[in-house]
């Protein structure tokens, strides 16, 4: 099956295959793969896919960008591609041009808030910010007395406490203390932190779905190679049924994520229907990361538990991505409140809206 007929994804997949092969990356203890990969992605204009030409980007469609993130998930790409894309997208909402280099977004959790005081300085703490340490700039959503603003901030102006998520990628705490942004503008009307979290959540959903696709592939392949009790383990019905369940989880994640991406790419606003799509994608993909990842590990046995094997590059990242831009339990509570608030007889019309 053709992964995609779109040029953005084709370009990205070629770069990933050449410079981010999971086995090569996994063997490289010094991370020498990172710089050439980022350079190739930048030269192809991919990190600024969602930034229009006149703001310094490559002006790809939302749909192409989402497909790119899915491909990045299939390679478990561990550079701030998704983060820079989201940052560029956020800045473009306020018509702020994107600079070159790595970026990330803050806040990255629905619980954290950055505030803007009367003279435009930004303050607040954002936890779990992906790749903050690698970022040259932050795209920030801040709240002041007169509503939400979007700002571009020099990353060196923030205080960064580094940390790692369960996938061994940077997930840092960023503190801004009366930081003057490089640029700041009002967010468009109706744009708020929930919008930003939903967008980030759908990006992570596509990455999780991609990681699950690869977990399914390598698990099927391994089961056809590994012999136990004098036959390939793929011939045991118990193993077959586990892999069938993994295929189901992978398919569900991909369906939820691509449906949400399609909804956002074609939406005029973030209404209840888009909210259902985006929140559901994050919830269902996070559940699939847990259930599907567990099966992939079960099929691989001890070898999949080693640092030498590439499985953990997918399984742990998929689990880590659950935490960014609102966990599944956060979105479940919010979606449950929305549904309850609309009332029992409005549930089905919402579900059947697309």
């Amino acid at each position, binding site marked *: 099956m053709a992964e995609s007929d779109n040029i953005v994804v084709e370009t990205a997949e070629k770069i990933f295959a050449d410079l981010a092969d999971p086995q090569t990356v996994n063997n490289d203890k010094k991370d020498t793969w990172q710089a050439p990969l980022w350079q190739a992605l930048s030269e192809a204009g991919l990190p600024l896919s969602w930034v229009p030409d006149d703001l310094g980007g490559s002006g790809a469609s939302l749909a192409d960008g989402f497909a790119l993130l899915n491909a990045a998930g299939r390679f478990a790409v561990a550079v701030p591609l998704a983060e820079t894309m989201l940052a560029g997208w956020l800045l473009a909402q306020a018509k702020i041009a994107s600079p070159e280099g790595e970026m990330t977004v803050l806040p990255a959790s629905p619980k954290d808030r950055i505030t803007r005081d009367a003279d435009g300085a930004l303050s607040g703490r954002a936890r779990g910010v992906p790749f903050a340490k690698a970022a040259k700039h932050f795209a920030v959503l801040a709240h002041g007395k007169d509503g939400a603003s979007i700002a571009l901030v020099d990353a060196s102006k923030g205080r960064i406490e580094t940390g790692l998520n369960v996938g061994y990628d940077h997930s840092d705490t960023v503190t801004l203390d009366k930081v003057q942004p490089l640029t700041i503008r009002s967010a468009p009307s109706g744009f708020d932190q929930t919008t930003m979290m939903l967008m980030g959540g759908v990006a992570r959903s596509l990455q999780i779905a991609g990681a699950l696709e690869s977990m399914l592939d390598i698990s099927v392949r391994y089961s056809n190679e590994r012999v136990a009790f004098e036959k390939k383990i793929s*011939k045991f019905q118990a193993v077959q049924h586990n892999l069938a369940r993994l*295929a*189901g989880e*992978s398919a569900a994640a991909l369906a939820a994520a691509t449906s949400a991406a399609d909804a956002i790419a074609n939406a005029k606003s973030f209404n209840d229907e888009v909210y259902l799509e985006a929140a559901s994608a994050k919830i*269902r993909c996070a559940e699939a990361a847990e259930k599907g990842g567990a099966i992939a590990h079960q099929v691989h046995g001890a070898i999949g538990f080693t640092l030498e094997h590439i499985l953990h590059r997918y399984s742990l990242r998929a689990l880590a991505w659950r935490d960014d831009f609102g966990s599944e339990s956060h979105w*479940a509570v919010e979606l*449950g409140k929305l549904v*309850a608030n609309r009332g029992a007889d409005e549930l089905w019309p919402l579900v059947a809206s697309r």
Partner: protein
Amino acid sequence: MTAALRFDPIRLPEKCEQLRKEVRAFLAEEIAAGTFDPHKPNREDTDAPEFSRRVGAKGWLGMTWPKKYGGQERSFLERYVVTEEMRVANAPTRRFFVADRQSGPVLIKYAPEHIKMDILPRICRGEICFAIGMSEPNSGSDLFAAKTRATKADGGYLINGTKIWTSSAHIADYMIAIFRTSQPTKENRRHGLTQFLVKMKQPGIQVNPIGQITGQYEFNEVVFTDFFVPDDHVLGEVDGAWKQATSELAYERSGPERFLETYYVLTELVRAVGPNPDTRSAEGIGRLVAQLHTMRRMSVSVAGMLQAGKEPVVEASIVKDIGTVWEQQLPHRVRDLAAFVEETATNRETLERQLDFAIKTAPKLTIQGGTTEVLRGIIARGLGLR
């Protein structure tokens, strides 16, 4: 190249939304007229012949079939909308559901023209009911172990043997069944079964109702004794039913009925918790809605594949596997959350009565129409493991 299955997002076209409004308006009228109570899935009489005729008169049966057979030549997506709205409203679809979903398409593919011209328009008018004769006392999931014999006679076949777990056989006008016409061969154990159209309610057929653990009598034992079926009632290739079974499965297994059978308890739970749920209820409802939404989007996507002329057998198996496991667990998850519903909730009794029935219904959902184990075998085959 990846083993993963893609379910492309389908946006239902505008005409589907127009149709949805018409179906909702029709169902609201039927409810107002007292045809059925949407809050009572466990009513005694699930067979509603007059309702069936009114649905037919709307043009909502056989909607994807050729016009010369009484169909509307509309899309699978339009049929999908009608099916899901009927299901969510708990409408009494028993009389026409099987004929519309799978018996009609089998006839269109394999029956002689004069039979199609006779039977299909009557299905479209909602006049006749179909049953499916697959399982036998010693042949359930292992379809190709069927023993009921069809012995060649002058101008047709004589049928002897027993079908079992046959839903709606007690009201059905016709059955599409598989019978043994030859012994299996060494090379192919699936060889030797033939698909037949059987006219019910005749001497030589005895239908014995079987009580189910829900208290209902929906399935039956059907005993054939020297029952005559004419030659022109053979559907497709003699001894070759195994070649014909697979494409049917994509229709049978991917529809909204594969995850909505216990849906009513979720609606009622939302009503019971009210507009300001506590965190526990909110999270529980949110997860269930996210899971439901995802399955529906997968199921709609399969309808899109059918519309595009594909045979998404593996995709349909995934929808049915995930969907039936979900609808089986749903009443139990709702029960967990209902334990915290205020005593004063006005619909508390309705919810409890519904839960009672849904919990009794749940065990069958992962068995009927292809067990979970059979489905996972099909998915594993699709992954290249078998």
